């Protein structure tokens, strides 16, 4: 055979394998879809039957079950039951009963024991977790313990099933398993036992009291604590003297959880005496749940423990005890370890100690003592607390903070904090700050700040230094700041420099600088640039500001301009009425006006709404859409007849916001489908429509354009009219309209909880178009059968439409 022939054969094989793989995939997915659809059809009648079972009293289940057991299509019934089991995380008693009485439980237990394929066993174990009872526990335990023969995933699923079943009749069996459990299994079994509540107490106490060093005894102690078993107190107290470290530690935690004061004596005794540091740490943690001088006294001694964790847990326990433990916590501020110091400071802050100190400083009461404490906080590295005190409105508090920092804080922290208050309004505090900075006068302070600015690589540090430089308004400083504005890479620094230089420039220079800074790529800087126009005569500020502003600038910048406009509204209004309504400045006025809330604003807008520029008219319509309170009816009517489609679309939104239903009725006849759709969507999103508007929606529902019909249909649903999906309407187009018009959280809430059946159904039908989970919930669990049926139908319709795509 020639090489070429071999190559051809290999190529053919590769091609054949590829084509075959694709064909197999197509066949497989078609088969899956087919059996799913077939089963879906057969399940229909059983849904009602199972719903009736769910609604029956327990005593009346028997005759119904007899009837159910005679059914021919058992597979379809099982499918419906499985849906119920999967549809809830609860385990309804009727369902467990039905599974047991129909023999399904035995079927799955048998499958778990004997099925050859792991998937079947795993599936059986999982379903037993959902619908099983104590009867399933032995089989599940046997699966869990078959470490040598059973598949790991199946064992894991069986463990989870045991956790879910939590049948009281299975307690003895589970405790017996805990006694022989391997170390990996013991915590899992403990978790499962804890879900059984107080029923597990007696057998676990017996187990804990047994001699020996079985590691699972520690888990018994843990469970006793978790279930709050007060009768287990003696056994747990004895556990503190157990030779096993783990038993002692878990007994201590459990005693803490019980909160029984009888536990105090043994806990206090072992806090200082136990040889294992982690047991001592656990005991300290447990003591946090108690109170009393002897507890605080022992925890103070715990603060001197050589083990870090014991000290940390002692600090946490003291904080948990509260105000009575403030003294010891203050002493923890001097711990050798910085983490413990900062933990103690955070604890004291939560207890409100700094607030008390502030009050004392303001009253001038016990100052030496207060200063001592503040210095301890500073020494502990409580930087943020000291920052807050340095920014306190009271000068005496700020001065005390400066003094405390100088006394107690490490040098780097002191520099960082003091740099934040260089612009303090109080001259005495500034003087103290400068003194603390080591500067001997204003000149040398400025020089050191400029030098610091050159050396500071971190932008935050540069911002702080620049803030300090603002204190020294002279030619030299201004030059430095201007350089920074033009050259610094950090927007924070540039904007800080703009703010600092503001007071050093004449009005004309500020305007020039502001205009150039409005071209900066950073939003922060552009906002700061707007600030440069503040504080000068508005007639002088607004024209250049509007000329430099970009209409598509960030809303935050436009809002900053709006703040200026609001503060000097007469001048702004005067300018707005003077400028040409067709020019680019008119567009800027309309954009800025969106953020202005002055009562005289409405009188500016009609002129702009009649602008010759479509952009301006569109901006005004958009403004009205978001601010219906300032709408001018006549001008809006003109906009609804505007020759430009984009303007009419915005006007439709504005009309809906203002409740101008007759205008919208006219827009329903608009020649452009986009406008008609917008009108429908705007009405759909309105809170509650009057009859006339609903009639408009109904009219739009017969529109020749699919997109309009879809929007109108969704509008009617959102307004609470549960109309069925009209024939020929594309569910995908309707789903798109739901996404646009509806607030989904509100819609979901309505579908779940609305009192009116129509509103609930209409909301669920809208959600069903999206295949939303809440629609599925409604289809499964709404109390009204007709709602469940209609929503199920809508869900299937939208799912099949998606498949069709």
């Amino acid at each position: 055979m020639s090489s070429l022939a071999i190559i051809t054969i290999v190529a053919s094989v590769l091609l054949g394998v590829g084509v075959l793989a694709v064909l197999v995939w197509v066949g497989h997915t078609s088969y899956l879809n087919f059996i799913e659809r077939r089963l879906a059809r057969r399940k229909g009648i059983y849904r009602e039957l199972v719903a009736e079972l769910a609604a029956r009293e327990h005593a009346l289940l028997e005759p119904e079950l007899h009837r159910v057991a005679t059914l021919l299509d058992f597979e379809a019934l099982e499918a419906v039951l499985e849906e119920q089991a999967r549809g809830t995380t609860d385990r309804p008693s009727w369902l467990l009963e039905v599974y047991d009485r129909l023999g399904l439980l035995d079927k799955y237990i048998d499958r778990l024991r004997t099925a050859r394929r792991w998937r079947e066993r795993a599936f059986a174990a999982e379903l037993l977790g959902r619908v099983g009872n104590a009867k399933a526990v032995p089989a599940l335990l046997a699966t869990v313990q078959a470490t040598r023969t059973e598949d790991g995933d199946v064992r894991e699923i069986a463990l989870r099933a045991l956790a879910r079943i939590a049948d009281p009749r299975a307690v003895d069996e589970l405790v017996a398993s805990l006694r022989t459990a391997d170390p990996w299994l013991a915590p899992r079994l403990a978790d499962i036992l804890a879900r059984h509540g107080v029923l597990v107490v007696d057998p676990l106490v017996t187990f804990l009291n047994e001699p020996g060093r079985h590691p699972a005894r520690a888990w018994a102690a843990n469970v006793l604590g978790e279930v709050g078993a007060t009768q287990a107190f003696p056994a747990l107290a004895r556990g503190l003297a157990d030779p096993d470290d783990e038993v002692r530690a878990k007994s201590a935690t459990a005693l803490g959880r019980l909160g029984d004061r009888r536990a105090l004596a043994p806990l206090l005794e072992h806090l200082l005496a136990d040889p294992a540091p982690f047991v001592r740490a656990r005991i300290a943690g447990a003591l946090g749940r108690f109170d009393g001088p002897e507890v605080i006294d022992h925890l103070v001694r715990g603060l001197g423990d050589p083990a870090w964790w014991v000290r940390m847990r002692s600090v946490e326990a003291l904080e948990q005890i509260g105000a009575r433990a403030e003294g010891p916590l203050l002493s923890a501020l001097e711990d050798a370890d910085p983490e413990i110091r900062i933990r103690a400071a955070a604890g004291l802050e939560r207890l409100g100690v700094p607030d008390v100190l502030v009050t004392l400083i303001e009253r001038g009461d016990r100052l030496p003592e207060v200063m001592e404490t503040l210095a301890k906080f500073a020494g502990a590295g409580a930087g943020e607390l000291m920052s807050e005190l340095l920014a306190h409105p009271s000068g005496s508090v700020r001065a005390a903070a400066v003094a405390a920092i100088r006394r107690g804080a490490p040098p780097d922290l002191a520099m960082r904090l003091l740099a934040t208050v260089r612009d303090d309004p109080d001259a005495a505090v500034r003087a103290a700050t400068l003194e603390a900075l080591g500067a001997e006068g204003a000149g040398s302070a400025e020089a050191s700040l400029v030098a610091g600015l050159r050396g500071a690589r971190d932008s935050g540090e540069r911002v702080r230094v620049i803030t300090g430089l603002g204190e020294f308004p002279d030619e030299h400083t201004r030059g430095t700041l201007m350089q920074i504005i033009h050259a610094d890479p950090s927007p924070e620094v540039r904007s800080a420099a703009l703010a600092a230089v503001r007071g050093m420039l004449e009005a004309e220079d500020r305007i020039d600088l502001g205009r150039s800074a409005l071209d900066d790529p950073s939003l922060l800087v552009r906002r700061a640039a707007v600030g440069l126009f503040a504080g000068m005569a508005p007639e002088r500020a607004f024209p250049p500001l509007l000329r430099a502003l970009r209409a598509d600038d960030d809303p935050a910048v436009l809002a900053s301009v709006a703040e200026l406009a609001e503060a000097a509204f007469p001048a702004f209004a005067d300018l707005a009425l003077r400028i040409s309504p067709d020019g680019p400045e008119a567009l800027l006025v309309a954009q800025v006006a969106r953020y202005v809330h002055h009562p005289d604003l409405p009188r500016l807008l009609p002129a702009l709404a009649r602008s010759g520029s479509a952009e301006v008219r569109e901006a005004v319509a958009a403004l009205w859409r978001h601010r219906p309170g300032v709408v001018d009816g006549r001008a809006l009517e003109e906009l609804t007849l505007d020759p430009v489609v984009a303007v009419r679309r915005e006007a439709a939104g504005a009309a809906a916001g203002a409740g101008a239903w007759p205008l919208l009725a006219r827009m329903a006849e608009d020649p452009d489908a986009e406008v008609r759709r917008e009108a429908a969507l705007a009405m759909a999103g309105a809170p509650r429509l009057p009859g006339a508007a609903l009639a408009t929606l109904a009219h739009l529902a017969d529109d020749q354009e699919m997109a309009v019909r879809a929007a109108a249909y969704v509008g009617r649903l959102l307004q609470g009219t549960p109309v069925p999906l009209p024939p020929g309407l594309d569910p995908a187009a309707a789903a798109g309209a739901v996404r646009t018009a509806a607030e989904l959280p509100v819609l979901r809430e309505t579908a779940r909880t609305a009192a009116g059946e129509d509103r609930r159904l209409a909301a669920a039908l809208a959600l069903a178009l999206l295949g939303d989970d809440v629609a599925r919930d409604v289809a499964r669990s709404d109390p009204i059968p007709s709602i469940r049926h209609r929503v199920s139908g809508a869900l299937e319709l939208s799912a099949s439409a998606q498949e069709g795509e």
Partner: protein
Amino acid sequence: MKTTVVEVLILLAIVAQPVFLFYFLLYNSYTLWLVALSALRVRRRVAGHFIEDLDLIDLGDLTKPLTMIVPAFNEEVTIVESVSGLIQCDYPRHEIVIVSDGSTDGTLERLARAFALRRTDIPYRGAIATARIRGMYVATVQLPPGVMQVLVIDKENGGKADALNAGINASTAPYFVSLDADSILDERALKELMRVVQEDPRVVAVGGQVAIANGCTIRNSRVVEIGLPARSLARFQMVEYLRSFTTGRTGLDHMDAILVLSGVFAVFEKDTVIRAGGYLTPFVRHRLTEEYVGGGVGTVCEDMEIVVRLHRYLRDKLHQRRIAFLPHPVAWTEVPETLESLRKQRGRWYRGLRESLRYHRGMLWRRKYGRIGWFALPAFWIFEYLGPIVELSGYGLVLFLVVMEQVLKVRFINSDFLWAFLLASLGYGVLVNMCAVLVGAWRFRFGLADRLQRGLLPFSRRRDVLVLLLYAVLENFGYRQLTLYWRLRGLWDAWRGKTGWEKFARVGFREGVAPAHG
């Protein structure tokens, strides 16, 4: 002179032809082997995925707390949406630590506004050395019950790995998850990964599949429907992800030899990572990292380096622990949609791969490293690191010899070889791609209840899979060679000493359909 040239070329052809043919056969067989292994794994994991009782995690007191670390560098476009998504994440005990890594845009401001941040002192344990911390902030807005706290660390720029190290230092939970600020998590993601940790105490790290969000329908920061990206470039990447990540990593995980957990989403045991020295950065001064890779060095692919180092650490210390991987998608990320962005990304990945492999070359062919030293690392060296050089040389040589045949009128290439070469490189490659796509799109059915079909990437439309199969064929003709070239450029950049990240500009996730243009 001409005779000499001809002789040299003939010799070159004789030597090179079988070498390249063998290489392509070996490479595609290796990939097909991983696809086959992953098919087995996927079948089991999809079943497991279906029958997981994740709600039990909510009920158990043994549920382990977790810290979500989000490094953010100039992420003002997506940061608030990402963090809001994380806050909604369905897990009973977790904290979120966002590390602003010297951001120069409005990242910090947007966070401060959205979550009402307040500066605070927290117990910060400098277990791993990092760049300087400027401040820490805690969110004061009302948080859902499962969220312990939302913390923001503002630090000087040190790179993503450095930001992760800062997050580890601030973390108060025994486990942490590394996240990208611009990715979307699956609602069950945390529970799924933590369930692996919870159930198998040997697991020190677990990662999940990261799928492509372009083209998917996104609602409320969640992917609700998988779709096909609109742009061809993203579709090619989807095929590539399915071949290299979905099936490749799953196959390696089947052999317990996973070498990369995507930085987009992976859970780690904090203490073990600290003991292994933390993520590799020039700031780290740990004896173990200095012993393994030398001091003062970093990497641009910290997600691969940390996994390889953890394997090395665990095996050196004889810990019977493992690193696990879940094949189904747990997170979604946006992939580049322009050639320039993709070039930068591939160049960076390749430089990172090179760094990790070179740092840990001591693990090669060492018995104590088991399958890592004998299979996974050699395969990465041969197919991932040297692959671009060999493959492009193969294509280049064939082209060169064909041209020289025309110039010199001498026959260098055996036509049988040419066909065999095209078959081994392109035909076999097409088959491997198609198998990878089918493994990703295959559906399984469990139980009788409604709509229980499950698959790794459950496309809602069959047409999408058929289109993807078409792209699986086309991927071998142009796109693949282009990515090889970009990787080679990455190697060139590495030789020139380039170390930057070259992050590509994200569009940001939009509600509705994710970034997909055209």
